[in-house]
């Protein structure tokens, strides 16, 4: 019978060393890993619990922006008043993962590194232009969130590397974000499509910066620069919204499966992009 070891290192360096071993798997909230273990889809030799690593759990402000520990649970994110005020879209994406019980464990780093194309925590982080602080056997590096997943279940992390924390940029006034997904039910489901939109308005209430990221419509979540660009300079008038929707749809490369056809996913991505943009705009204080 195979043996399964469990370690819970307290320093990032020890964690990186443990993770570099053959057959090691990181455990953050475990809401994907435990399901995969029970289903026999993964058979690790050692589980490296990252929750006790210094800095892995918690939310702090630094240089005008927020730093979120990679293993911080969705429930903790949802209860952080300042974070919710600055990044409501990031938090609502994270809070859509699983049930109330799962929220007590599920983490953004786990959601990102599980590398599901439909991960609800990811598009809003990408639209937020968040970066990851990655710790590995060769030290620390920083990379944008969209650089982590390379395909379903695949990441760009080297052996031993893990995400210690996320860094969200400083938030100017008149800025907000939103995340929307479509599922056939109202909860406990996997996104057919998901869209994060992050807007910064200028003093006149026009869109100064816009970032649009799509989930579940390609092998990885997508940052669609053309979709964001279509919104810049306006107040979400119909023409710019239509252009943004078209750009979002043009970027979609989905598969057809039991959760939705390619055509349906593409169409819904546009609908959700429009709706998320309108929500983010209103949250940022924009007037249509």
């Amino acid at each position, binding site marked *: 019978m195979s043996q399964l070891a469990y370690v819970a290192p307290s320093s990032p360096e020890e964690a990186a060393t443990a993770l570099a071993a053959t057959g090691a798997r990181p455990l953050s909230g475990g809401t994907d890993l435990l399901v995969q273990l029970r289903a*026999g889809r993964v058979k690790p030799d050692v589980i490296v619990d990252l929750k006790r690593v210094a800095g892995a759990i918690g939310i702090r402000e630094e240089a005008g922006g927020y730093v979120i520990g990679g293993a911080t649970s969705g429930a903790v994110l949802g209860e952080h008043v300042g974070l919710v005020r600055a990044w409501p879209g990031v938090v609502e994406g994270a809070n859509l993962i699983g049930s109330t019980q799962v929220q007590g464990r599920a983490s953004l780093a786990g959601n990102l590194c599980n590398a599901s194309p439909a991960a609800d925590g990811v598009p809003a982080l990408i639209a937020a232009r968040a970066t990851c602080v990655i710790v590995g056997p060769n030290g620390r590096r920083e990379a944008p969130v969209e650089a982590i997943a390379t395909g379903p279940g695949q990441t760009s992390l080297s052996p031993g590397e893990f995400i210690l924390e996320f860094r969200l940029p400083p938030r100017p006034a008149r800025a907000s974000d939103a995340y929307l997904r*479509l599922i056939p*039910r109202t909860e406990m*489901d*996997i996104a057919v499509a998901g869209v994060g939109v992050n807007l910064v308005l200028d003093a006149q209430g026009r869109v100064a910066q816009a970032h649009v990221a799509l989930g579940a419509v390609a092998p990885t979540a997508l940052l669609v620069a053309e979709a964001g660009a279509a919104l810049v300079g306006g107040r979400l008038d119909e023409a710019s919204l239509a252009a943004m929707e078209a750009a979002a749809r043009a970027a979609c490369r989905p598969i057809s499966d*039991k959760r939705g056809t390619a055509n349906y996913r593409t169409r*819904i991505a546009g609908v959700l992009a429009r709706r998320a943009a309108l929500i983010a705009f209103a949250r940022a204080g924009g007037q249509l």
Partner: protein
Amino acid sequence: MSETLEKPAAAAVLNVVGTRPIRPDGADKVTGRATYGADFNMPGQLVGKILRSPHAHARIVSIDAGKARGLPGVKAVVTAADFPDLASEMHEGGEQASNLRDLSLNVMARGKALYDGHAVAAVAAVSTEVADAALALIKVTYEVLPHVTEVEDAMASGAPLLHAHLFTEGLPAKPASASNIARRHYNERGDIAQAFAAADVVVEQRYTTQAVHQGYIEPHACVAAWAEDGRCEVWSSSQGQFMVRTYCAKVLGREISDIRVTPAEIGGGFGGKTTVYLEPVALALSRASGHPVKMVMSRDEVFRATGPTSGSVMHVKLGATADGTITAAKVELKFQAGAFPGSPVGAACMTALACYDLANFTITGWDVVTNTPKVAAYRAPGAPIVAFAVESAVDELAVKLGMDPIAIREKNAVHNGTKAAYGPTFQNIGYVETLAAIRDSDHYKAPLGRNQGRGLAVGFWFNIGGESTAAVHIGEDGSAVVVTGNPDIGGSRASMAMMAAETLGLPVERVRPMIADTASIGYSMLTGGSRTTFATGMAVVQAAEQVVAELRKRAAKLWETTVEQVEWKGGQARCLDPAKPDKKPLTLEALAAQSGRMGGPISAQVSLNAQGAGPGFGVHLCDVEVDPDTGRVDVVRYTAAQDVGKAIHPAYVEGQVQGGVAQGVGWALNEAYIFDRDGKMENAGFLDYRMPVASDLPMLDTILVEVPNPRHPFGAKGVGEVPIVPPLAAVANAVRAAIGVRMPDLPLSPPVVLAAMDRRQG
């Protein structure tokens, strides 16, 4: 909101029946103390696991279990060779008859695997890990055969044949060749050709539904122990311990008396636990290993190898005159049976037109085997499927005629004295009262919002009686125990205790309801067919009445008067003898305390075969809101009215109605078995088999209409199955009203609804 509309009746004053006490099984269930199927353990027990076919249709060329047997910790491996090869024999077990040979072949494949998930071998080992490793070491050589999962494909000539010796029954002459069509059901009245020709309006449509699972929370689980002397013990979660006993005895070739089955608490059944899957296998493993064996299914196994109910293709044609009188109906139903004959198409044929008083109709049903799991009963088996088609067609007729959906149903409604399409003459039914309850409801008059639509549908279920046993024992302190043989899947402990309390004149808290094992109470048919409160309740009341008769007899003896001079009222014997004005009433407590001197313990048992179950009718009203950009459907308001005869415990009756609606809404909107091109189920888990979650549904309002059934002591009718019959059509009719397009194919998932809106816009 919930309300009860009671028909004025000369009923006696009731103190317990009709009230809402806390359920006797409630505390155990909310504290986790209740012992479900997987909670029971025996010293020295092994873990049993099943190896399942990865192919939808394959010949089993050979099974080599040598390596598995050699793995340390493996105590037994069994295959079909360890079970007797049974002859074909029908067994009437409750709601649906079963062929014992098919049952046996479904428990363990012999020669051929007929669906993805079909059991081909089983192991017993010292741990789950060893058992899993042993399964991986069993080498099964398959010859993969062409498969068929869709019902019309299976009916086509040239389709892969599941059973070489299956010849369609129910045809005028035996067919020349075998096919996948097990049976044709046919019923007719009048002359439909003439009636359609004379109709002012005709509607005709093809409808489809997908296979759906009962979705009980508790997976199948059991512990079985085969002793050296051949006596067997089984602990399992099922809808009937006597059913488990019979099927285990038959499948293993044992005497009934060799097997005792103890019922566990049951975490949902909905008809799906009216058969056996694990118990005979666990017994065979126990016999081979000499140890007790515990088996618990995973959810994946539950989806792939148990349930579901049929997917279907249906054609409905209705003709009516301009005033809305339906003059002709033609119904054809094709139902997937799964790997063995026995879809609920027969019941579907019988219920299809049961709400309508029709002079001319034909109903044809086809029971068709497919390479999918053998269907099991699911709450009003067959009726929701056909009601979806017929109620959509009636809705279409109303649209075409510009008629109110209740008015067209009232115009064609069955009444007391109407000869039902399926044969009997209705008596004491409350159908038009239920229609009126919805017509008079606030909901029916409420305005609709943007993108919203309202749908109405009706439904019928027979409800059954049948064989039941109940015992009532009085304790020496005057409290009572009520013992029955029916697992409690719908609040029946509460209703048994309440009916006994009412009859004895005790507070319900002083009555403890128990569900006994097969050696401790007389035979009872399984809990199904909405029969328990009616039939077993009748046995409980009669047993309690025998206890009361004994109490009166004892009081008469004490008072030295005749039993006629003693009345039992309010839990006390009262002396009516004018010659003995000084005799104070004797309580049950006082009489029980003297039982040692008065003839011994006070106890009664009644076994009966209850006749006269009253059929039930439901009328459902559903409002939906459709997202015009995504096709997502939200149920925003729902009211279900139902004739329940007499609600023994109204809150649990309302719960039954709400539960049926919730399951029906899931069936309508998102639930479906999805098979890949190899015939493997793609969504064998709750993530992608989309049952509704709590937040998907609004408060489901209920209206209980009480038209008593005079055959039951308190007027009860079965209530558990009717409420799943109308929702499929009620939801679909509401979506049609919202988007202006008839929706004939379930489920109404967002892409399907969006595509329909696209078609409307051209």
